[in-house]
């Protein structure tokens, strides 16, 4: 390893990157676009949800409750239902996403704080609706003593998805997903491009060592990865008010380790691919399991055991634990050390495979 040579490779790489308008645009564009797109899916401010009403009491106070809930505009309580069977059917076909059920003994229940006075039945397969219903459950109910907010006022029953996942998980998760996509793809492509364009044939006839070349080409992407993390975090804060409860430094340390893990994977893929197109296909091949099994899309705890084992191998799984822990729960790296260690093991193993395959020959 020779510093001047390494430096010249980094300078060359940055110059090329500056002139590659498309890649440059992707570096900024991918995080911004994804955040905005995903951002609207995590919008908790639900309005005009299609909902039904089954008012079995049909008293003055029950009608008052229906009117008061309708006034919040969270639910559109237009559809009048006649029986619990109708509620089931309407939910199943997706005609409504929630239903307010006022039992026949609503009046007596109101006087007894131990039992919920009414029920909101929710299509739990939609995260956002669940969250909205939970807000409504805290709605104060008028009884003889006036408007009160009782814990047992309205009961929320979750259909189809008993696990309540906080949608805010998406933004920290997105940091990981964006790094996975750009870091693996860009490095694999950048390294294969050198081979495809014939530059490598020129370089291997010079004293450049394969490691100077690989590290020199990969280092600029570490910086780019950190820029992307910053973009997502800033936009997440500005647009969606995502909290950062833990330490900023520890967050960046985790991101750095994860970036190195993703770059290692990219280097490894580049040793397998013979063309930029192949490198791209391979990169996408690694995205799918990472995005589906890491806990970004579906909760880890809900997956079958085999899928959980697979997830443990994926770097994104561990990074999501780190970043969610730090950002949402205010956890420290000391508490999350095993996830950090898992990333370290991943880096060592993948880099070892890559080293064994990087050769300075044409055959």
């Amino acid at each position, binding site marked *: 390893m020779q510093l001047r040579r390494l430096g010249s490779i980094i300078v060359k790489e940055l110059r090329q990157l500056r002139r590659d308008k498309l890649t440059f645009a992707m570096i900024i564009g991918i995080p911004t676009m994804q955040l905005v797109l995903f951002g609207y899916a995590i919008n908790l401010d639900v309005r005009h949800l299609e909902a039904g009403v089954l008012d079995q009491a049909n008293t003055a106070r029950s009608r008052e409750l229906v009117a008061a809930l309708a006034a919040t505009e969270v639910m559109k309580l237009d559809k009048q239902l006649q029986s619990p069977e109708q509620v089931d059917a309407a939910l199943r076909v997706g005609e409504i996403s929630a239903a307010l059920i006022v039992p026949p003994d609503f009046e007596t229940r109101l006087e007894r704080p131990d039992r919920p006075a009414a029920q909101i039945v929710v299509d739990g397969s939609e995260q956002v609706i669940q969250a909205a219903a939970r807000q409504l459950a805290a709605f104060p109910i008028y009884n003889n003593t006036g408007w009160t907010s009782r814990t047992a006022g309205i009961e929320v029953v979750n259909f189809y998805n008993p696990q309540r996942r906080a949608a805010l998980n998406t933004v920290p998760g997105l940091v990981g997903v964006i790094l996975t996509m750009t870091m693996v793809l860009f490095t694999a492509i950048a390294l294969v491009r050198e081979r495809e364009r014939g530059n490598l044939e020129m370089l291997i006839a010079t004293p450049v060592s394969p490691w100077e070349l690989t590290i020199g080409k990969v280092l600029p992407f570490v910086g780019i990865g950190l820029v992307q993390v910053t973009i997502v975090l800033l936009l997440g804060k500005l647009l969606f008010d995502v909290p950062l409860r833990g330490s900023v430094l520890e967050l960046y340390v985790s991101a750095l380790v994860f970036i190195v893990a993703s770059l290692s994977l990219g280097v490894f893929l580049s040793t397998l691919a013979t063309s930029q197109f192949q490198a791209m296909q391979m990169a996408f091949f690694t995205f799918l399991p990472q995005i589906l099994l890491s806990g970004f899309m579906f909760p880890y705890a809900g997956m079958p055991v085999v899928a959980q084992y697979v997830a443990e191998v994926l770097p994104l799984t561990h990074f999501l634990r780190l970043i969610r822990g730090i950002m949402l729960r205010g956890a420290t790296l000391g508490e999350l050390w095993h996830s950090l260690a898992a990333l370290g093991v991943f880096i060592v193993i993948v880099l070892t495979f890559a080293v064994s395959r990087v050769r300075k*020959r044409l055959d």
Partner: protein
Amino acid sequence: MNDDVAIHAQGLTKRFGTLTAVDNVNLTVRKREVYGFLGPNGSGKSTTIRMLCGLMRPTAGEIDVLGYKIPRDAEALKRRIGYMTQRFTLYEDLTVGENLDFLAAVHELSRAAARARIGELLERFRLADRRDQLAGTLSGGQKQRLALAGTVLHKPDLLFLDEPTSAVDPQSRREFWESLFELADMGTTLLVSSHYMDEAERCTRLAILDHGRVVADGTPHDLMANLPGRTLLVETAKPREAQRSLQGVQGIIAMAQIGTSLRVLAKAGADFERQVGERLKAAGVEAQVHPIAPNLEDVFVVATSNNKESSHAAA
């Protein structure tokens, strides 16, 4: 190894699966020579060069380049050689100056030495006014000059040039060869592959490759002198008819129409001048037949038409 020898290869062989790309090649290149590899596409020129530079490992054979055992000492050799391919392998999205800066750093030239050397090369290869132009926007000839400048930046003792002029016009080719001879004058040994006869003829020594074998080698002069009485010129008003009537004559290797005359290349031995004359007379074609001096194309055709026969002829 003799101090005067730059490259020595013995029994050099490379197989890719069942294909033998280079087959038992023996080669000796002396220092300061401009040694040519002449051969059709797929004759093993590139593979041989790559093995000699240590970019590929031979399946069998011994290689000694500048006193280094290859492939064992390939890394040490790389500091003393330059390697240039037909394809432009510098970075098209870097400027002329940036490309040379990069290569200077790769070869560990100090910043001051690099500045001086790059300035000198830009002048010599007439690229000084192109310094800030992207390499991808240069013309074919300029790209070639830039590639050569990059290849000789670290003053290598030995240059491997794999079909360096395939992509440039005749004017640029001539200029390029002027640069090569300048380098040879300064003491550099050159190994150049080509499929152009005129280029091969300019080499001080030459090997003709066909199907991975060296089918002839020697100085261009000696190779041509080895074909006495075997090339005839048939001057006639009807060259196409003459060619038709000579079709099937035993011993004719090749015929080529050159303007209004016909060039006939024959195997060694028989008295072809008389035989051809009689055949034309019998066919009623009026023609004058006389022997002419063989050129390198004749040597090439003889050598590649029949490996066994020609290697004797050229020996």
